[in-house]
Protein backbone atom coordinates (compact mmCIF):
# COMPACT_ATOMS: atom_id res chain seq x y z
CA UNK A 1 0.00 0.00 0.00
CA UNK A 2 2.81 2.38 0.89
CA UNK A 3 4.60 1.55 -2.36
CA UNK A 4 1.58 2.38 -4.49
CA UNK A 5 0.92 5.52 -2.40
CA UNK A 6 4.45 6.73 -3.11
CA UNK A 7 4.39 5.88 -6.81
CA UNK A 8 1.03 7.55 -7.46
CA UNK A 9 2.00 10.55 -5.34
CA UNK A 10 5.24 11.02 -7.25
CA UNK A 11 3.57 10.88 -10.63
CA UNK A 12 0.68 13.16 -9.71
CA UNK A 13 2.91 15.56 -7.75
CA UNK A 14 4.53 16.98 -10.90
CA UNK A 15 1.23 17.48 -12.71
CA UNK A 16 -0.24 18.94 -9.52
CA UNK A 17 2.43 21.62 -9.29
CA UNK A 18 1.64 22.71 -12.84
CA UNK A 19 -2.09 22.86 -12.05
CA UNK A 20 -1.33 24.94 -8.93
CA UNK A 21 0.74 27.39 -10.97
CA UNK A 22 -1.97 27.69 -13.65
CA UNK A 23 -4.59 28.30 -10.95
CA UNK A 24 -2.50 31.14 -9.55
CA UNK A 25 -1.87 32.55 -13.03
CA UNK A 26 -5.61 32.78 -13.64
CA UNK A 27 -6.53 34.16 -10.23
CA UNK A 28 -9.75 36.16 -10.49
CA UNK A 29 -10.54 35.28 -14.11
CA UNK A 30 -14.20 34.44 -14.67
CA UNK A 31 -14.88 30.79 -15.37
CA UNK A 32 -11.33 29.58 -14.79
CA UNK A 33 -12.52 26.83 -12.45
CA UNK A 34 -14.58 25.25 -15.25
CA UNK A 35 -11.73 25.44 -17.76
CA UNK A 36 -9.08 24.05 -15.45
CA UNK A 37 -11.37 21.30 -14.15
CA UNK A 38 -12.13 20.51 -17.80
CA UNK A 39 -8.40 20.29 -18.49
CA UNK A 40 -7.87 17.91 -15.58
CA UNK A 41 -10.82 15.78 -16.71
CA UNK A 42 -9.73 15.69 -20.36
CA UNK A 43 -6.17 14.84 -19.28
CA UNK A 44 -7.38 12.03 -17.00
CA UNK A 45 -9.60 10.54 -19.71
CA UNK A 46 -6.79 10.88 -22.22
CA UNK A 47 -4.43 9.19 -19.78
CA UNK A 48 -6.61 6.09 -19.48
CA UNK A 49 -6.90 5.91 -23.28
CA UNK A 50 -3.13 6.36 -23.76
CA UNK A 51 -2.43 3.71 -21.11
CA UNK A 52 -4.83 1.38 -22.90
CA UNK A 53 -2.92 1.85 -26.14
CA UNK A 54 0.50 1.81 -24.45
CA UNK A 55 1.62 -1.30 -26.31
CA UNK A 56 0.62 0.11 -29.70
CA UNK A 57 2.29 3.47 -28.95
CA UNK A 58 5.44 1.75 -27.72
CA UNK A 59 5.75 -0.26 -30.92
CA UNK A 60 4.98 2.65 -33.25
CA UNK A 61 7.79 4.30 -35.24
CA UNK A 62 10.24 1.47 -34.67
CA UNK A 63 9.91 1.58 -30.92
CA UNK A 64 10.22 5.31 -30.30
CA UNK A 65 6.49 6.12 -30.56
CA UNK A 66 6.40 6.91 -26.83
CA UNK A 67 9.12 9.54 -27.13
CA UNK A 68 7.59 11.17 -30.22
CA UNK A 69 4.17 11.25 -28.57
CA UNK A 70 5.56 12.78 -25.35
CA UNK A 71 7.55 15.38 -27.26
CA UNK A 72 4.53 16.26 -29.43
CA UNK A 73 2.22 16.94 -26.51
CA UNK A 74 4.95 18.88 -24.70
CA UNK A 75 5.46 21.08 -27.76
CA UNK A 76 1.71 21.76 -27.91
CA UNK A 77 1.83 22.79 -24.24
CA UNK A 78 4.83 25.08 -24.91
CA UNK A 79 2.94 26.79 -27.74
CA UNK A 80 -0.09 27.31 -25.51
CA UNK A 81 2.03 28.75 -22.69
CA UNK A 82 3.73 31.11 -25.12
CA UNK A 83 0.40 32.22 -26.46
CA UNK A 84 -0.92 32.79 -22.93
CA UNK A 85 2.09 34.86 -21.91
CA UNK A 86 1.81 37.03 -25.00
CA UNK A 87 -1.86 37.53 -24.27
CA UNK A 88 -1.11 38.41 -20.65
CA UNK A 89 1.51 40.92 -21.71
CA UNK A 90 -1.23 42.73 -23.58
CA UNK A 91 -4.01 42.44 -21.02
CA UNK A 92 -2.40 41.60 -17.70
CA UNK A 93 -2.17 45.13 -16.44
CA UNK A 94 -5.82 45.83 -17.15
CA UNK A 95 -6.70 42.62 -15.36
CA UNK A 96 -4.69 43.43 -12.27
CA UNK A 97 -5.95 47.02 -12.21
CA UNK A 98 -9.60 46.17 -12.65
CA UNK A 99 -9.51 43.49 -10.03
CA UNK A 100 -7.75 45.53 -7.42
CA UNK A 101 -9.61 48.75 -8.14
CA UNK A 102 -13.13 47.50 -8.65
CA UNK A 103 -12.80 44.02 -7.25
CA UNK A 104 -14.78 42.53 -10.09
CA UNK A 105 -13.91 39.59 -12.21
CA UNK A 106 -12.28 40.09 -15.55
CA UNK A 107 -14.05 39.30 -18.78
CA UNK A 108 -12.46 38.27 -22.04
CA UNK A 109 -9.95 35.84 -20.59
CA UNK A 110 -11.67 32.80 -22.07
CA UNK A 111 -9.35 32.31 -25.01
CA UNK A 112 -6.34 32.42 -22.77
CA UNK A 113 -8.13 29.99 -20.44
CA UNK A 114 -8.56 27.53 -23.28
CA UNK A 115 -4.79 27.60 -23.89
CA UNK A 116 -4.10 26.98 -20.21
CA UNK A 117 -6.71 24.22 -20.03
CA UNK A 118 -4.77 22.48 -22.81
CA UNK A 119 -1.56 22.83 -20.76
CA UNK A 120 -3.29 21.33 -17.71
CA UNK A 121 -4.61 18.48 -19.87
CA UNK A 122 -1.12 17.78 -21.22
CA UNK A 123 0.42 17.76 -17.73
CA UNK A 124 -2.26 15.43 -16.39
CA UNK A 125 -2.12 13.23 -19.49
CA UNK A 126 1.64 12.80 -19.24
CA UNK A 127 1.82 11.80 -15.60
CA UNK A 128 -1.65 10.24 -15.51
CA UNK A 129 -0.94 7.71 -18.24
CA UNK A 130 1.83 6.26 -16.06
CA UNK A 131 -0.48 6.14 -13.06
CA UNK A 132 -3.13 4.42 -15.17
CA UNK A 133 -0.60 1.87 -16.45
CA UNK A 134 0.60 1.21 -12.93
CA UNK A 135 -2.97 0.79 -11.66
CA UNK A 136 -3.89 -1.50 -14.59
CA UNK A 137 -0.95 -3.62 -13.51
CA UNK A 138 -2.22 -3.75 -9.94
CA UNK A 139 -5.72 -4.61 -11.07
CA UNK A 140 -4.26 -7.44 -13.16
CA UNK A 141 -2.07 -8.91 -10.44
CA UNK A 142 -3.84 -10.28 -7.41
CA UNK A 143 -0.96 -11.48 -5.29
CA UNK A 144 -1.41 -8.79 -2.62
CA UNK A 145 -5.06 -8.08 -3.34
CA UNK A 146 -5.74 -4.93 -5.31
CA UNK A 147 -7.80 -3.15 -2.62
CA UNK A 148 -5.03 -1.90 -0.29
CA UNK A 149 -2.90 -0.87 -3.25
CA UNK A 150 -5.76 1.03 -4.86
CA UNK A 151 -6.40 2.68 -1.49
CA UNK A 152 -2.73 3.66 -1.36
CA UNK A 153 -3.02 5.11 -4.86
CA UNK A 154 -6.10 7.09 -3.80
CA UNK A 155 -4.29 8.55 -0.79
CA UNK A 156 -1.30 9.39 -3.01
CA UNK A 157 -3.62 11.23 -5.38
CA UNK A 158 -5.20 13.24 -2.55
CA UNK A 159 -1.81 14.18 -1.07
CA UNK A 160 -0.60 15.36 -4.48
CA UNK A 161 -3.76 17.45 -4.87
CA UNK A 162 -3.01 18.97 -1.45
CA UNK A 163 0.50 19.94 -2.60
CA UNK A 164 -0.84 21.69 -5.68
CA UNK A 165 -3.36 23.54 -3.51
CA UNK A 166 -0.55 24.64 -1.17
CA UNK A 167 1.51 25.94 -4.10
CA UNK A 168 -1.53 27.82 -5.35
CA UNK A 169 -2.20 29.38 -1.94
CA UNK A 170 1.45 30.29 -1.57
CA UNK A 171 1.46 32.07 -4.93
CA UNK A 172 -1.79 33.95 -4.44
CA UNK A 173 -0.44 35.30 -1.17
CA UNK A 174 1.63 37.57 -3.44
CA UNK A 175 -0.04 41.01 -3.74
CA UNK A 176 -2.23 41.09 -6.83
CA UNK A 177 -0.30 43.77 -8.66
CA UNK A 178 2.81 41.59 -8.56
CA UNK A 179 1.12 38.22 -8.89
CA UNK A 180 0.88 38.16 -12.68
CA UNK A 181 4.45 39.33 -13.11
CA UNK A 182 5.56 36.38 -10.96
CA UNK A 183 3.26 33.85 -12.63
CA UNK A 184 4.25 35.07 -16.12
CA UNK A 185 7.90 34.46 -15.29
CA UNK A 186 7.06 31.06 -13.84
CA UNK A 187 5.03 30.20 -16.94
CA UNK A 188 7.91 31.25 -19.21
CA UNK A 189 10.25 29.00 -17.19
CA UNK A 190 7.68 26.18 -17.24
CA UNK A 191 7.47 26.46 -21.03
CA UNK A 192 11.26 26.50 -21.35
CA UNK A 193 11.48 23.44 -19.11
CA UNK A 194 8.88 21.59 -21.19
CA UNK A 195 10.70 22.48 -24.42
CA UNK A 196 13.94 21.24 -22.86
CA UNK A 197 12.27 17.99 -21.85
CA UNK A 198 10.81 17.56 -25.34
CA UNK A 199 14.30 17.98 -26.83
CA UNK A 200 15.81 15.60 -24.26
CA UNK A 201 13.14 12.99 -24.97
CA UNK A 202 13.75 13.24 -28.73
CA UNK A 203 17.50 12.96 -28.14
CA UNK A 204 16.91 9.88 -25.98
CA UNK A 205 15.07 8.35 -28.94
CA UNK A 206 18.06 9.13 -31.16
CA UNK A 207 15.93 11.53 -33.25
CA UNK A 208 17.83 14.68 -32.24
CA UNK A 209 21.57 14.79 -31.57
CA UNK A 210 22.25 15.21 -27.86
CA UNK A 211 25.04 17.80 -28.37
CA UNK A 212 26.76 16.38 -25.33
CA UNK A 213 25.14 13.81 -23.06
CA UNK A 214 25.47 16.12 -20.10
CA UNK A 215 26.88 19.63 -20.20
CA UNK A 216 27.24 19.73 -16.45
CA UNK A 217 26.29 17.67 -13.43
CA UNK A 218 24.71 19.28 -10.38
CA UNK A 219 23.33 16.07 -8.86
CA UNK A 220 25.64 16.52 -5.87
CA UNK A 221 23.82 19.80 -5.15
CA UNK A 222 20.28 18.80 -6.01
CA UNK A 223 19.37 15.37 -7.27
CA UNK A 224 16.32 14.92 -9.47
CA UNK A 225 15.14 12.02 -7.32
CA UNK A 226 14.83 14.30 -4.28
CA UNK A 227 11.47 15.98 -3.68
CA UNK A 228 12.87 19.47 -4.18
CA UNK A 229 14.63 18.30 -7.33
CA UNK A 230 11.52 16.77 -8.84
CA UNK A 231 9.43 19.83 -7.91
CA UNK A 232 11.91 22.11 -9.67
CA UNK A 233 12.06 19.63 -12.55
CA UNK A 234 8.29 19.89 -13.00
CA UNK A 235 8.01 23.64 -12.53
CA UNK A 236 11.08 25.17 -14.17
CA UNK A 237 12.61 22.17 -15.94
CA UNK A 238 15.51 21.62 -13.56
CA UNK A 239 17.79 18.88 -14.79
CA UNK A 240 20.86 17.74 -12.87
CA UNK A 241 22.57 16.48 -16.07
CA UNK A 242 21.15 18.41 -19.00
CA UNK A 243 22.15 17.44 -22.51
CA UNK A 244 23.35 20.14 -24.90
CA UNK A 245 20.23 20.04 -27.02
CA UNK A 246 18.09 20.32 -23.88
CA UNK A 247 19.88 23.48 -22.76
CA UNK A 248 19.63 24.90 -26.29
CA UNK A 249 15.86 24.26 -26.45
CA UNK A 250 15.44 25.70 -22.95
CA UNK A 251 17.33 28.91 -23.70
CA UNK A 252 15.73 29.41 -27.11
CA UNK A 253 12.19 28.99 -25.76
CA UNK A 254 12.83 31.34 -22.86
CA UNK A 255 14.27 34.01 -25.16
CA UNK A 256 11.43 33.68 -27.67
CA UNK A 257 8.76 33.88 -24.97
CA UNK A 258 10.32 36.86 -23.23
CA UNK A 259 10.82 38.57 -26.59
CA UNK A 260 7.23 37.94 -27.73
CA UNK A 261 5.82 39.25 -24.45
CA UNK A 262 7.98 42.38 -24.61
CA UNK A 263 6.92 42.96 -28.20
CA UNK A 264 3.23 42.44 -27.41
CA UNK A 265 3.41 44.78 -24.43
CA UNK A 266 5.11 47.50 -26.45
CA UNK A 267 2.75 47.25 -29.40
CA UNK A 268 -0.29 47.61 -27.17
CA UNK A 269 -1.84 51.07 -27.44
CA UNK A 270 -1.46 52.73 -24.06
CA UNK A 271 -4.86 52.85 -22.46
CA UNK A 272 -3.41 53.58 -19.08
CA UNK A 273 -2.00 56.75 -17.61
CA UNK A 274 0.99 58.02 -19.64
CA UNK A 275 3.32 57.47 -16.71
CA UNK A 276 2.45 53.79 -16.72
CA UNK A 277 5.37 51.77 -17.96
CA UNK A 278 3.58 49.08 -19.92
CA UNK A 279 6.33 46.54 -20.35
CA UNK A 280 8.02 46.68 -16.99
CA UNK A 281 6.58 43.63 -15.35
CA UNK A 282 6.27 41.01 -18.07
CA UNK A 283 8.85 38.60 -19.29
Amino acid at each position, binding site marked *: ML*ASLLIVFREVFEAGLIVGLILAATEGVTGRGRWIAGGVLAGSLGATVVAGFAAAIAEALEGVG*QEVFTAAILIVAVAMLGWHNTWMARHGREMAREMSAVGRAVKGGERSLLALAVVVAVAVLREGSEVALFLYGIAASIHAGPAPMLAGGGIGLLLAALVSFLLYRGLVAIPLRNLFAVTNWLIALLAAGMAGQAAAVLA*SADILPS*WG*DHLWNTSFLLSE*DSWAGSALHALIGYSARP*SGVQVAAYATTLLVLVGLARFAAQSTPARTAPSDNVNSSHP
Partner: protein
Amino acid sequence: MRIPLFAVALLCLAVPAMAEEPLHLTIKDHKFQPERIEIPAGTKIKLLVRNDDDVAAEFESFQMDREKVVPPGKEVPVFIGPLDKGEYPFFDDFHQDAKGVLVAR
Protein backbone atom coordinates in the same frame (compact mmCIF):
# COMPACT_ATOMS: atom_id res chain seq x y z
CA MET B 1 26.92 28.63 -46.92
CA ARG B 2 28.73 29.20 -43.69
CA ILE B 3 25.81 28.35 -41.47
CA PRO B 4 24.88 24.99 -43.06
CA LEU B 5 28.52 23.91 -43.09
CA PHE B 6 28.84 24.90 -39.47
CA ALA B 7 25.68 22.96 -38.64
CA VAL B 8 26.93 19.88 -40.46
CA ALA B 9 30.25 20.10 -38.66
CA LEU B 10 28.45 20.40 -35.34
CA LEU B 11 26.25 17.41 -36.14
CA CYS B 12 29.27 15.32 -37.09
CA LEU B 13 30.95 16.22 -33.84
CA ALA B 14 27.82 15.50 -31.89
CA VAL B 15 27.01 12.07 -33.31
CA PRO B 16 29.44 9.55 -31.85
CA ALA B 17 29.79 6.08 -33.26
CA MET B 18 26.98 3.77 -32.24
CA ALA B 19 28.03 0.36 -30.95
CA GLU B 20 27.05 -2.08 -33.65
CA GLU B 21 25.15 -4.70 -31.68
CA PRO B 22 22.24 -3.75 -29.43
CA LEU B 23 22.43 -4.97 -25.85
CA HIS B 24 19.57 -6.90 -24.30
CA LEU B 25 17.89 -6.47 -20.95
CA THR B 26 14.95 -8.60 -19.86
CA ILE B 27 12.42 -7.99 -17.11
CA LYS B 28 11.06 -11.24 -15.67
CA ASP B 29 9.25 -11.73 -12.34
CA HIS B 30 9.97 -8.05 -11.64
CA LYS B 31 13.71 -8.53 -11.86
CA PHE B 32 16.21 -7.37 -14.42
CA GLN B 33 18.28 -9.97 -16.26
CA PRO B 34 21.17 -9.25 -16.22
CA GLU B 35 21.31 -6.91 -13.23
CA ARG B 36 24.68 -5.58 -14.26
CA ILE B 37 25.57 -4.48 -17.77
CA GLU B 38 29.02 -3.32 -18.81
CA ILE B 39 29.51 -0.99 -21.75
CA PRO B 40 32.49 0.90 -23.08
CA ALA B 41 32.60 4.53 -21.93
CA GLY B 42 32.15 7.18 -24.61
CA THR B 43 30.05 4.98 -26.88
CA LYS B 44 26.41 5.29 -27.71
CA ILE B 45 24.49 2.06 -27.24
CA LYS B 46 21.06 0.75 -28.02
CA LEU B 47 19.59 -1.21 -25.15
CA LEU B 48 16.62 -3.43 -26.04
CA VAL B 49 14.48 -3.78 -22.94
CA ARG B 50 12.06 -6.68 -23.01
CA ASN B 51 9.25 -7.19 -20.52
CA ASP B 52 8.36 -10.86 -20.03
CA ASP B 53 5.93 -10.14 -17.20
CA ASP B 54 2.21 -9.73 -17.73
CA VAL B 55 2.06 -6.16 -16.38
CA ALA B 56 3.68 -2.95 -17.59
CA ALA B 57 7.11 -1.94 -16.33
CA GLU B 58 8.98 1.35 -16.60
CA PHE B 59 12.71 1.41 -17.20
CA GLU B 60 13.96 4.48 -15.35
CA SER B 61 17.30 5.96 -14.42
CA PHE B 62 17.94 9.37 -12.91
CA GLN B 63 21.65 9.09 -13.62
CA MET B 64 21.07 8.41 -17.31
CA ASP B 65 17.96 10.62 -17.46
CA ARG B 66 15.91 7.88 -19.06
CA GLU B 67 12.30 6.94 -18.44
CA LYS B 68 10.45 4.57 -20.69
CA VAL B 69 7.37 2.41 -20.30
CA VAL B 70 7.79 -1.22 -21.34
CA PRO B 71 4.35 -2.77 -21.95
CA PRO B 72 3.88 -6.45 -21.03
CA GLY B 73 5.26 -8.86 -23.62
CA LYS B 74 6.95 -6.05 -25.57
CA GLU B 75 10.49 -4.99 -26.33
CA VAL B 76 11.43 -1.30 -26.62
CA PRO B 77 14.70 0.36 -27.53
CA VAL B 78 16.43 2.72 -25.09
CA PHE B 79 19.31 4.75 -26.49
CA ILE B 80 22.02 5.42 -23.94
CA GLY B 81 25.18 7.45 -23.84
CA PRO B 82 27.84 8.19 -24.70
CA LEU B 83 28.54 7.96 -20.97
CA ASP B 84 31.55 8.92 -18.89
CA LYS B 85 33.17 6.15 -16.88
CA GLY B 86 31.08 5.29 -13.88
CA GLU B 87 28.11 3.40 -12.51
CA TYR B 88 24.58 4.25 -13.61
CA PRO B 89 21.83 2.59 -11.57
CA PHE B 90 18.43 1.93 -13.13
CA PHE B 91 15.16 0.54 -11.78
CA ASP B 92 11.60 -0.39 -12.66
CA ASP B 93 9.53 2.59 -11.58
CA PHE B 94 6.42 0.43 -11.23
CA HIS B 95 8.14 -2.30 -9.16
CA GLN B 96 10.93 -0.62 -7.32
CA ASP B 97 12.50 -3.82 -6.00
CA ALA B 98 13.72 -4.39 -9.54
CA LYS B 99 17.12 -2.74 -9.73
CA GLY B 100 20.16 -2.94 -11.92
CA VAL B 101 23.28 -1.04 -12.78
CA LEU B 102 24.96 -0.11 -16.02
CA VAL B 103 28.72 0.24 -15.78
CA ALA B 104 30.62 2.34 -18.29
CA ARG B 105 34.34 1.54 -18.28
